[in-house]
């Protein structure tokens, strides 16, 4: 698992570390340069000062009996930093500061130069005064210079080094604070109940996390809808399965308890009706199971639509007051599809039409396109707000029939989908009733 916090921390720490290192290097280099400049200036000034004082100087050469050394006031810590030699123009050492080397510091007549004397690096400034006949050489050891620069930088470096862990702690704390909205969301999600599909609170969510929380909330909403749908389905199914059983049981108990033979017979007849209803429900459930399993793989054949409708209409019981008419033009219409699917669709549409009207005409006819089939009934139709739901399994609307199960239109819809057709339900505008259009996609 990659931790965003750890990654950010490492990135921030490396970036600050890099900047810190660059700053320290820059300070080191610039202090060194500045210091060198200052020391060089000091050399220069010292040389000129000595040269200007060289007027009445004893010009006898330096030897053991005549050391002629002078001592500058020692500087604490950086003692004997400067060494001075005064030479005559003819090459005699006239005087030197104590601690200055015996040999000539530089051969150059004037200006700066670096030399190695007795294994030590020196920086020397030479100035020649022809009028006074002296050459003054002032030098200091480079080692001293480096120590000075080192000490200076060390003084700057220690506090800077202490700052590094402090920075780390500060960055870590800031990150934690910055990540707090995420922590809240995590906490909210982690402590949720399994069935809690309420949206994540987005009022305090930073804009960067917003797409994530929005997506989460959309997912929650979708899951909630799916679960509610499933719950409704379970409820409808339980109702449809248990109701005929409840009827059967209650009627059977009536038949047992009744002393009157008429009451008993009536109850037994009701039991028969209930059994018919239940067996129809079982048939429909099996049909749905077959459609779900994918019956369409079983091949297609040429089917005369008119003949099929006649066949189904003849086999379906209907009240005496309900008539069925089949458009003659349907007799010549043929579809090349799976017979079982088409039969299921047509039969369930036919049954649905008959169930929803006590009397009237069920009319099968050709649709507006010559390849489409339309069935119209004279029942109550379907309320507009229920039209989108009637394909839902077990859904039974306001005008449900006494013997329905809420599966008929679902089966028709599923079966038509399997053979590449579509079911369109509309309320009739010419009269009361439902128009079901079976549209064959070309």
């Amino acid at each position, binding site marked *: 698992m990659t931790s965003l916090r750890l990654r950010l921390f490492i990135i921030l720490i490396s970036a600050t570390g890099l900047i810190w290192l660059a700053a320290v290097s820059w300070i080191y280099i610039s202090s060194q340069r500045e210091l060198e400049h200052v020391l060089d200036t000091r050399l220069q000034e010292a040389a000129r000062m000595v040269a200007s004082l060289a007027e009445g100087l004893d010009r006898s050469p330096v030897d053991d009996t005549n050391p002629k050394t002078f001592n500058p006031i020692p500087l604490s810590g950086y003692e004997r930093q400067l060494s001075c030699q005064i030479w005559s123009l003819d090459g005699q050492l006239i005087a030197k500061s104590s601690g200055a080397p015996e040999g000539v510091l530089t051969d150059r007549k004037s200006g700066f130069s670096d030399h190695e004397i007795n294994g030590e690096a020196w920086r020397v400034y030479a100035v020649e005064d022809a009028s006074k006949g002296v050459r003054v050489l002032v030098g200091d050891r480079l080692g001293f210079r480096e120590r000075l620069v080192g000490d200076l930088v060390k003084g700057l470096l220690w506090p800077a080094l202490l700052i590094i862990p402090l920075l780390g702690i500060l960055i870590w704390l800031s990150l934690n604070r910055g990540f707090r909205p995420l922590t809240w969301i995590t906490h909210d999600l982690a402590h949720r109940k399994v069935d809690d599909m309420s949206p994540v609170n987005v009022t305090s969510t930073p804009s960067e996390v917003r797409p994530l929380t929005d997506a989460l909330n959309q997912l929650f909403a979708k899951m909630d809808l799916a679960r509610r749908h499933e719950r409704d389905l379970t409820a409808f199914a339980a109702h449809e399965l*248990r109701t*005929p059983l409840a009827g059967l049981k*209650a009627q059977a*108990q009536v038949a047992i308890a009744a002393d009157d033979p008429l009451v008993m017979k009536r109850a037994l007849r009701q039991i028969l009706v209930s059994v018919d209803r239940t067996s129809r429900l079982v048939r429909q459930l099996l049909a749905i199971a077959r459609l779900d399993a994918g019956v369409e793989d079983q091949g297609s054949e040429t089917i005369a639509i008119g003949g099929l409708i006649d066949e189904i209409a003849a086999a379906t019981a209907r009240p005496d007051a309900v008539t069925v008419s089949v458009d003659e033009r349907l007799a010549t219409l043929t579809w090349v599809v799976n017979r079982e699917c088409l039969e299921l669709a047509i039969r369930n549409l036919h049954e649905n039409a008959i169930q929803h009207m006590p009397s009237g005409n069920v009319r099968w006819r050709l649709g507006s396109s010559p390849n489409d089939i339309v069935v119209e009934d004279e029942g109550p139709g379907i309320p507009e707000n229920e039209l989108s739901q009637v394909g839902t399994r077990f859904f039974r609307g306001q005008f449900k029939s006494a013997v329905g199960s809420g599966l008929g239109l679902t089966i028709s819809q599923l079966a038509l989908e399997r053979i590449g057709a579509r079911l369109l339900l509309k309320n009739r505008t010419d009269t009361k009733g439902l128009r079901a259009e079976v549209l064959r996609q070309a």
Partner: protein
Amino acid sequence: MRILVVEDDPIIADAVRVGLALGGASVDCVGTCADALAAVSTTRFAAIVLDIMLPDGSGIDVLSEMRARKETIPVLLLTARDEISDRVSGLDAGADDYLVKPFDLDELAARLRAITRRSEGRADAFLVHGAIRVDPTEASVTVDGRLVQLSRREFAVLAALMERPRVVRSRSDLEERLYGWDDDVESNAVEVHIHHLRNKIGREAIETVRGLGYRMRAV
């Protein structure tokens, strides 16, 4: 005992109507929420059997509406769903009891007797007044321990009077409790039942309060 059955399935409604009538109750059936609310506002029922899934809405909504109207009639819910949340929401909405489909008709009758008994503030299953003892469970009556054979209607009249023995019950009150909407009521039906009852349980047992109705005689 007059019961309203709110059930849209005709076969169940029929079975409940006939089955409860065998136990001495008179039953009216309606199939929608709207009809149920209309029935409750026009007729006094001893109890209501209410299906939850109705074509024009939920039985729970009918129940809530009734309770909002301060109707205290005991209600038994019939539900096809056997989920605790459904039962809890039903009971919370003001139901007195519930049964899950498929249910036992005898159990339904017993539960109806229990919730009506509770709503009348009785703990005892028997109605006792003097020497007369009415057992609603068995639909039987004894006088001094001697079993008396009563018709269904006669039993219903006696049970109605015995519920509150000293309260006067008017003729129309008794008629309403005896007959469903579909029953033809003879204009003197209650008088006839009272006459037969007096012959069977003793002439002095029921007192006529002139111009008002009937009640049990004080013991």
